[in-house]
């Protein structure tokens, strides 16, 4: 009850016209960076942080937080329309969002994503407001062994998900993991596989690789098929068909719960809930073969999950003072810059500020859903721009996106190479998503593995002596065994859906 009154007071602060304006600016910039490939929320918050120095602390953090959760709405748009994720969390949305757009249902995909994002985002903020402190304490039980196990389960499920062949999925995933090793090792400091080049010392960048593998490769494939490509279908409606409402809302419900729980784990990222949600949806669907061909639940679940994650990921920050992702780390910096110390004492020392920020997140989500629902149709029309114009524009954005990562021309060459690689992979029917996902999680996988083994004195069975990591690893072993078995028996087509937990 106490929280409720404080939240109302928070609304009082957040609803002043000045704060409303900055909330609007924040979420708009968030949408923009989500849409623009290359520019991510981390870069955007970092770029705008200095501008906020002269603002009131509340106003500054309201705006920066707006960029953070706004970008998750924006990232969906490019995934659905041009099969290029605007930021990492939207990789999964490509699987079913893009096929939907090809069927002329881009509006529906975007509409459902917006509704799901709103519900997921709002529920997780309610969670942030009311049950944060007790839950955050539980999250401390998650250490390196648990992270390692969680990543392994996630990766194996992705490999099980993609494409027709286990072998090709595995190859793609292993390539991603190996590419993630390039550069300086985080544990020992040894520089690996940089081919003697200084610019590779910091490793390959996620944005550069995705711009190449998704953006450029998509353009290359498109240029080739253009001759026989039909006219893009009309964008009709924003809402799912009547019979799709029930499964959609259920997927949104599951995505909300999943995203919320994963956000509580310090060190997790918004990609993990999206993957888990997708595989969950596919597992429980009556007809899993629809997935990858435009299943509406495949958009609703993951999009909801990553937005639900965005709210609850602030819980470790507000209650423990621990930033759990790079963007949140910059928000953390903003708190510090304005003389606030995130941590267990924050709710006591600066209640007016915290509650105003939480209240503004409700408002921001409302603005975003209003911005997205009617405009989804407008964004959807971009899919109707003739490809002969759209492709050159994607091309120029990919080039700038790759360049802006480090302001370095080398990154454009790297993107170029990955573009050709992506093109060849598509030609040979290698799935690309496992590569990108394992690349994102590779560093965390290695550090958590090495840290765990140090904890266990090098004893691999230590993982199985801890309940959470043990259970997760047993599940992943089962997934692997069943996938190998089914692919040997050539029953993969029928059983593929059953092995993904």
């Amino acid at each position, binding site marked *: 009850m106490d929280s409720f009154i404080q939240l109302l007071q928070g609304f009082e602060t957040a609803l002043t016209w000045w704060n409303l304006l900055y909330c609007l600016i924040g979420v708009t910039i968030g949408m923009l960076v989500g849409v623009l490939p290359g520019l991510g929320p981390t870069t955007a918050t970092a770029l705008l942080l200095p501008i906020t120095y002269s603002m009131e602390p509340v106003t500054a953090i309201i705006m920066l937080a707006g960029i953070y959760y706004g970008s998750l709405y924006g990232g969906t748009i490019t995934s659905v329309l041009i099969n290029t994720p605007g930021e990492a969390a939207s990789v999964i949305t490509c699987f079913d969002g893009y096929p939907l757009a090809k069927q002329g249902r881009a509006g529906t995909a975007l509409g459902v994503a917006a509704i799901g994002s709103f519900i997921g985002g709002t529920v997780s903020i309610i969670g942030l407001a009311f049950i944060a402190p007790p839950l955050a304490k539980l999250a401390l039980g998650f250490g390196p062994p648990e992270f390692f196990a969680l990543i392994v389960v996630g990766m194996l499920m992705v490999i099980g998900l993609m494409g027709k062949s286990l072998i090709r999925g595995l190859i793609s995933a292993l390539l991603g993991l*190996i590419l993630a090793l390039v550069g300086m090792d985080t544990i*020992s400091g040894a520089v*690996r596989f940089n081919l003697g080049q200084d610019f590779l010392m910091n490793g390959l960048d996620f944005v550069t690789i995705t711009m190449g593998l998704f953006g450029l490769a998509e353009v290359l494939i498109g240029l*080739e098929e253009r001759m026989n490509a039909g006219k893009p279908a009309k964008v009709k409606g924003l809402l799912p068909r009547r019979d799709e409402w029930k499964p959609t809302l259920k997927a949104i419900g599951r995505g909300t719960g999943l995203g919320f729980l994963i956000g509580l784990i310090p060190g997790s990222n918004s990609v993990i809930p999206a993957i888990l949600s997708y595989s969950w949806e596919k597992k429980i669907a009556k007809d899993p073969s629809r997935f990858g061909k435009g299943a509406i639940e495949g958009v609703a679940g993951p999009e909801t999950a990553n937005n639900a994650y965005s709210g609850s990921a602030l819980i470790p920050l507000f209650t423990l003072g621990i930033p759990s992702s790079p963007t949140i780390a910059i928000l953390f910096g903003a708190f510090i810059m304005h003389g606030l110390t995130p941590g267990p004492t924050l709710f006591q020392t600066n209640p007016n500020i915290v509650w105003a920020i939480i209240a503004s997140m409700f408002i921001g989500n409302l603005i975003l859903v209003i911005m997205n629902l009617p405009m989804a149709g407008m964004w959807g029309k971009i899919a109707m721009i003739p490809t002969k*114009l759209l492709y*050159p524009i994607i091309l*120029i954005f990919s080039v700038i996106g790759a360049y802006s990562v480090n302001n370095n021309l080398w990154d*454009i060459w790297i993107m170029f190479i990955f573009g050709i690689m992506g093109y060849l992979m598509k030609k040979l029917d290698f799935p690309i998503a496992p590569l990108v996902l394992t690349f994102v999680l590779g560093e965390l996988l*290695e550090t958590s*593995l090495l840290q765990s083994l140090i904890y266990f004195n090098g004893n691999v069975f230590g993982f199985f002596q801890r309940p959470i990591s043990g259970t997760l690893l047993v599940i992943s072993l089962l997934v692997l065994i069943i996938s190998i078995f089914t692919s040997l028996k050539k029953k993969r087509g029928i059983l593929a859906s059953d092995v993904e937990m």
Partner: protein
Amino acid sequence: MRNAGVWAGALLLGFAGFIFWQSLSFDYYTVRGPGPGFLPLWLSGVLIVISLVYIWEAIKKEVIVFKQILPKGRALGNILSMLGSIIIFMIVISYAGFVVSAVILLFIVLVREFKWYSALGISVVTSIIVFLVFNSLLGIPLPVNALGW
């Protein structure tokens, strides 16, 4: 050898072998625990095995011939012109700055589908707008020529 799958497999095998060989130069195990060579050695080792399985599959089970997957005629032209345009872009940008090279990049791709004057118009307008948005507004220092663009 017209089997594309075998070539891809051989490429993978070579890559995995290179990583494996490189990994040997890092510590596999240190007193503190597994070293920087630990994971790459395992990953590339597994990749070597899987590449071999893939090559076997490509020969015995699913034969993909180059003819099936390589683009022909106009499609090949489209692809080569785009790849070429990026290479020219990269060469020109250090001298002429972003705007000029972006116009060239877009023009090469667009001219295949549009009349030359439309292609030029679209290229120039797009390049300038993109430059203004990213360079001036978002503060990304795009390479410029002596005149500042």
